[in-house]
């Protein structure tokens, strides 16, 4: 029977350190299995979040060998030989052991202005399949917040958290901006208050996404291009002026906030 060495971060807001465990390794096991065995045998007070064990709830996000990953989806046999390091997500304040306080994300979620459809036309709202498909990719997000964790804008610069929504919410903004029934214009918001310009396209969010959402290519860059349309492209401005824009301006939206 082969063994595995686990170095698991133990601690809380007062500090902590690695604790090392030597356990037997069984074929097909994932990191979460081993963490559970540690809880069952050697450290019953080891704190970690988990729920579905199927990569669909996002609860068991931690950093394995320094990279954000879901414990339930990381097979031991895919990791290099040697000790496996398991630490809590670095970007968020520690609660205990592998559990972090991710409330930053909930605060950012609250700030997103909701969809504002036009007045109900006769016969109700209608959406065509191609428009539905466009936003479907973004709906796959399981809110594991690993993209937020790996984003260096807030991972390495705490002060930016005040004005930076992060990749998870940029896909939400992109989804709403691409929604054919939405009448809000969020381009000023993402540029001025949500820190879209902080993103420098390093694509780490896309690399770690367990749902393989093309966060950068399909959400952040299209949002950046929409901001360019609004603020840095005089030809686009001229085109809008001639054709008259169909979306509400920032001033109009402020008068009638989203429901």
């Amino acid at each position, binding site marked *: 029977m082969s063994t595995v060495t686990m170095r698991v971060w133990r601690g809380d807001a007062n500090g*902590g350190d690695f604790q090392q465990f030597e356990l037997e390794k069984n074929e097909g096991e994932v990191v979460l299995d081993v963490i559970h065995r540690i809880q069952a045998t050697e450290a019953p007070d080891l704190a970690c979040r988990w729920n579905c064990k199927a990569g669909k709830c996002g609860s068991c996000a931690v950093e394995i060998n*320094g990279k954000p990953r879901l414990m339930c989806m990381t097979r031991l046999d895919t990791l290099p030989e040697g000790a496996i390091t398991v630490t809590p997500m670095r970007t968020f304040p520690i609660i205990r052991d592998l559990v972090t306080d991710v409330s930053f994300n909930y*605060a950012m979620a609250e700030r*997103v202005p909701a969809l504002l459809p036009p007045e109900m036309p006769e016969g109700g709202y209608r959406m065509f399949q191609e428009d539905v498909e466009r936003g479907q990719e973004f709906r796959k997000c399981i809110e594991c917040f690993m993209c937020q964790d790996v984003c260096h804008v807030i991972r390495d610069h705490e002060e930016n958290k005040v004005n930076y929504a992060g990749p998870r919410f940029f896909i939400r903004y992109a989804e709403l901006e691409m929604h054919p029934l939405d009448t809000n214009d969020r381009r000023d918001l993402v540029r001025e208050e949500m820190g879209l310009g902080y993103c*420098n*396209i390093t694509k*780490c969010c896309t690399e770690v996404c367990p749902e393989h959402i093309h966060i950068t290519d399909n959400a952040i*860059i299209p949002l*950046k291009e929409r901001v360019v349309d609004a603020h840095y492209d005089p030809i686009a401005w001229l085109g809008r002026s001639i054709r008259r824009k169909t979306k509400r301006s920032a001033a109009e939206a402020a008068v009638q906030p989203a429901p």
Partner: protein
Amino acid sequence: MTAVENSTKVTLGGTRGGPDVATLRTDRWWLQPVVTMSILISFVIYSTWAAFQNKNYYVGAALQRDLISPFYSPCLSANCTPGSSSLFAIHGWTWSPALLILLFPLGFRMTCYYYRRSYYRAFWWAPPACGVADAHGTYTGETRFPLIIQNVHRYFFYAGLVFNGLLTYDAFRAYHQPGLGWGVTIGSLVLTLNATLLWLYSLSCHACRHLCGGQVKSFSQHPIRHRLWKFLTPLNAKHMNFAWASLFVVALTDVYVRLVASGAIHDIRLF
């Protein structure tokens, strides 16, 4: 519009878990930035050298060929090698003609979303790799000068299309060898490959995808732009490949033309 009012305030601070080290990654995360840095520095050194050479950039009728280096096309200076000049010339410009035009392809690549990812990682270390601490105490990204200039990418894209058209014309001309007539040479194939890869690089650009269809709110109301967007989306997924391939081949094309023009090699006529 503004964010929803009365939302929960973000609380800064709080102790973070894990050790205070730059990274816990054990793989060779440094390899990619090192390779990227090496390739880009090599290209910058070579292209700077080539741009200042001001010779051996055109193979003309004397060698029964019509090949021009992409670094020098269009040749706009008054002292272009005979046969290589364009419809008009900028009189008074006596330096290398490459210096007149290289700003545009350079600007296109410098502001390209893919290259931004690469050089922010390789040169600026912001961050050098995912999960590795970036090398700066503060960070403002692309919100301020000079990096806010990255937003002009689409203008370099427009300029790039003009250059692609010119280089395509150059490739077409390369199939007609003065004194011999129409035929295929290694040089004509190299110029064609160069123009093709530059078109693929431009068409796979994120700004192109946005302008062709991505900017519309409803695909169902813009079926032609939706088709264009669907056509460009798989190309866009390979933007990185086209970025590197076109970079290599544009340098290779200059090397080839330079070698033929200097007499170091002969441009073989295939048929």
